[in-house]
């Protein structure tokens, strides 16, 4: 277990190094001049000589690898640079958005599980019956509707027309979070309900199920003690992966519902060509994602005794 954990941690560090290199390279290759971008945000572009001086001062004339090394060194000390657009430390700006991001992500994951698992299970139990077709059509809607469209429609109908829920998610109250979280959950639920259905059907075809039934165990015991737990285990990994797509994918919903989290910060950074902030965003999202997945893997090994031995 310990050795495995150590191995995973080394892996994470290697991947982070790779990603840091990539994000630095990306900005290095970006069209436009970083010094000019830095000043353009304040509306005053100094003369070419002054900019050349600053370029020299900032070390932008040094070879690429040297620039990368000094940047990386600063990052490791927690210094991700100063945002061009807001003049504040990037780390501080990102940190303030982490909790809102995770809150929205987890809330929508929870909503999704509540929607998807019953749908999938019922769909599987009533396979090819009318209720199965109804539920499958529902899940089909989920995966085919553009989530920004769903968000806009919900905003329009529930927020503006019926005035049931707030239309801006500024401030993070649970009531304000319902619409954004549901928008995200709706699309995911479609995908998951299909997975749950398939996983349950597959599990039901296993020999041990026939065996258990043949031994005279009741169907409900088989279903609850064996089929569902076994079918749910792979979903845990999927949840971890979904969190990844949520970390980037919430941007659309954040924009629609004015929810201030990492995604909308990234969009704002892009519009302002705030390179340090974009770089910081990539690194932070990678780090959060990998830590959460590590946590998922660890919990996985507790749930599945086979893995604890370390295969």
């Amino acid at each position, binding site marked *: 277990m310990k050795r495995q954990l150590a191995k995973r941690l080394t892996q*994470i560090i290697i*991947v982070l190094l*790779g*990603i840091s290199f990539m994000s630095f390279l990306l900005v290095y290759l*970006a*069209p*436009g001049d970083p010094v000019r971008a830095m000043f353009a*945000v304040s*509306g*005053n*572009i100094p003369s070419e000589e002054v900019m050349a001086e600053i370029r020299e001062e900032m070390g932008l004339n040094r070879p690429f690898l040297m620039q990368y090394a000094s940047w990386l060194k600063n990052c490791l000390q927690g210094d991700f640079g100063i945002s061009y657009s*807001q003049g*504040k430390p990037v780390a501080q700006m990102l940190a303030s958005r982490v909790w809102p991001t995770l*809150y929205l992500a987890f*809330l929508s994951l*929870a909503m999704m599980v*509540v929607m998807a698992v*019953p749908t999938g299970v019922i769909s599987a*139990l009533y*396979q090819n019956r009318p209720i199965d077709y109804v539920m499958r059509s529902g899940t*089909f809607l989920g*995966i*085919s*509707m*553009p*989530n*920004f*469209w769903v968000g*806009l429609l919900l905003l329009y109908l529930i927020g503006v027309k019926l005035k049931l829920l707030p*239309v*801006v998610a*500024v*401030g*993070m*109250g649970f*009531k304000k979070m319902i619409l954004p979280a549901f928008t995200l959950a709706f699309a995911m639920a479609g995908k998951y309900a299909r997975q749950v259905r398939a996983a349950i059907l597959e599990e*039901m*075809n296993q020999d041990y199920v026939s065996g258990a039934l043949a031994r005279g165990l009741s*169907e*409900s015991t088989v*279903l*609850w003690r064996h089929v569902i737990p076994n079918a749910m285990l792979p979903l845990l990994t999927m949840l971890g992966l979904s969190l990844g*797509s*949520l*970390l*980037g994918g919430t*941007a*659309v919903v954040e*924009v*629609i519902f*004015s929810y*201030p989290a990492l995604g909308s910060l990234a*969009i704002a*950074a892009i519009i*302002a*060509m705030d390179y340090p902030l974009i770089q910081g965003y*990539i690194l932070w*999202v*990678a780090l959060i994602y*990998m830590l959460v997945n590590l946590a998922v893997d660890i919990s996985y090994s507790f749930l599945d005794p086979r893995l604890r031995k370390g295969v």
Partner: protein
Amino acid sequence: MPMIQKKRQFLFFLIFVFCIVAIAVFAPYIATHDPGRAVLTDATQGPGGEHWFGTDRMGRDLFSRVIYGARTSLSATLVLVLCILVLGGSLGIVAGYLGGIADTLIMRVSDMMVSFPGMALAIAIAGIMGPSITNAVIAITMVSWTKYARLARSLVLKIKHQDYVLAAVMSGTRTRHMLWRYMLPSVLPTLVITAATDMGGMMLELAAFSFLGLGAQSTSIEWGYMLNEGRAYMESAPWLMIFPGLAIFITVVAFNLLGDSLRDLLDPQGSNQVFQKNKRSVGMMKRFLKVMGLMMAVFLGFSVLGGCGSQAAQSEGGTGKEAHLNFGCYNYSDSLDPATNVNSSWCGIRYGITECLFKFSDQVVAQPNICDDYTVSEDYKTWTLHIRGGVKFSNGNDVTASAVMASIERLYAQTDASQGGAGNSRPDGYLTYASIAADDQEGTVTLVCDKPNSNIPGILAYPYFSIIDTSVADQEIIGTGPYKVKKVEGSISMDLERNEHYWNGEVPYESVTILFINDSSTKAMALQSGDVDLVENITTASDLEKLAADEQYYISTASGVRTGNSYMNFKGVLSNETLRQGILMAIDRDTMCNVTVAGMYTPGISVLPSSLTYNYDKLTDPFPYNKEKAIALLDEAGIVDSNGDGWRELEGKNIELNSVAFSSRNLNEFAEAVALQLSEIGIKVNVNIRDYDTALALQNAGEFDMITSNALTVSTGDPVEFLGNWYSGHSASYGFYANPEYDAVYEELMAELDSGRRTELITRLQQILIDDASNIVYGYYNSRMISNAQKVRGAEIATMDYYWLTTDIKPAE
């Protein structure tokens, strides 16, 4: 399902998809209108009649646009899927077949990509490369190829050791031949099937990019971008959002159905379910539902707890003893320090936290504020400012003459890089002084300028010169305004409370919550849903119209002191005067201001707003809107289409104007409307919507033919700085306009101190600019404040948009 039924189903969905493809291919025959042709006066008409799906804000037929949109959306998705397939497939084949270093390298990179949230990286890549549909395709390809690489690799590994492959290798077949003839054919079918099932998902991703503004731009007709545009009109013109969304939805459904049926068709697994054969017991289902219900209850409980844990803004406004106001506004800056940058200095004043020595009246005259009296020497160099007695900062400290001096000195020190200042504000652009001194006995500050200056009150009313308590400025910004900061939540919200020491009358609200809402239509919706009671500047015309029609809301409009105009580049094709005159006559500024942007701007011909006291009424317009005359003028001057491509030429060269704009205060709409109108008289314009910084950089570099901009004309109460944009000494950043007559008058203006003579000179300058067809003026931006009249009264907007939260804004009775 029996095989034959599966096949039928597949065929059915295939025909469905083909129908959509056919719509794209035969779009010109299906569309009822030219999708690009704009009739500005027909803007935002509802579905029905001549326009089946209605029209958009430029008066273009939505049905035809949706039909044509199929072309962009389908082809972009196809290219994207092909790119992913080719890149992922070939890397996978190479990795699998060659093995060794190539395999390790490719698979490590792929591992890295998998252990990273793809969408986040794709957004960053697309953003850094600049928004365009090509870049969106590249960005998504870069993060999506790994799936195909893994698939291809595993397939190659499976067949690599089969006898016929080994035999081929032993008989000396070249590697390249092996890859092409043996590996590719066995891998391709699976990859193509995967690609077919991925089409729907990829189309959604691309549309999301366009929706975020990172994909297709205004020049192309694309569904995601149409939704993005339509979003702003959700309330008054919902069809703009419904039809493009429906188009995406139907297409994605078609592809997903096709993909599913394809998978069914190829899936060898039959259906022999154990449970199927048995009758389910009712008890089992009951128990299942019970457990699910319990889970849901636990989830709800947890969520509510989570929600309560984080703070939520109270929405009780205007009732009870403790009056509270919820104010929704755009977040221009997270800082309130006047030294940080322009926006931060404005924010402090706008939120009623800081104040200046002088304050502009609605007639744009600087009035005494913290400074209650002043004297000036005859040479206009030495200004003695008397500080009003009894004024206190919101922390209780006295505003003494030396405190005022400290505040001004701090501003200059904080913005001077040679003194280690990190601020981006540029006060020296307005004022440089030789010395400053404070006399606390007399209560005066003496400012000695290094050259004569008649406008010190106006300059000191500019937000840079807000008076703050320097003794605590490193921790917090304490001013003399009616409110003070209680709590700041990043760029999310800000809680203000009453300044108990306020010097100028009673402060109506005990507390104010500012919610930062950057999207104009969201601001409108938040006002209607009751999330906020007061918002500034709704720039989406349709939202404003709806609010204006509803008696519950009060809209205060100030005739603007901002001019919306397009600079023309005199170092390009637009140096031709006849061409410029023709362009001016082809532009219907009244319709643009009144219909296209629905009254956001008041139309006007001069660079200085009609509401100011610079003799607007005496100006004459030699080039009024007249399309026929414009065409005749160009024809006469020999600027005609001689090569028959539909566009006019100048001296044998095609005219192709590069029009740059950024999307703020309806400027992008102006640029698009101009392009559409000029195309009517045969002048080709390419609209280039960029972010603010890029547009500014292009402007400074002179890389434009027209650049649309919106600027405050009298930021210090005097238009002299703004008129300098056409002075040949400064005009390099504004299109290189040069006219010796203008220069002479401008130089006289700079030295003139008498206000009557100044007005005369300013009037002449305006007329010269009009006669020279020097730039396209659209109109003057009207600032607004919109309030819920049942909860708030007195919510008027000031002419100078420095002042938002004033003590005049009070709870309704």
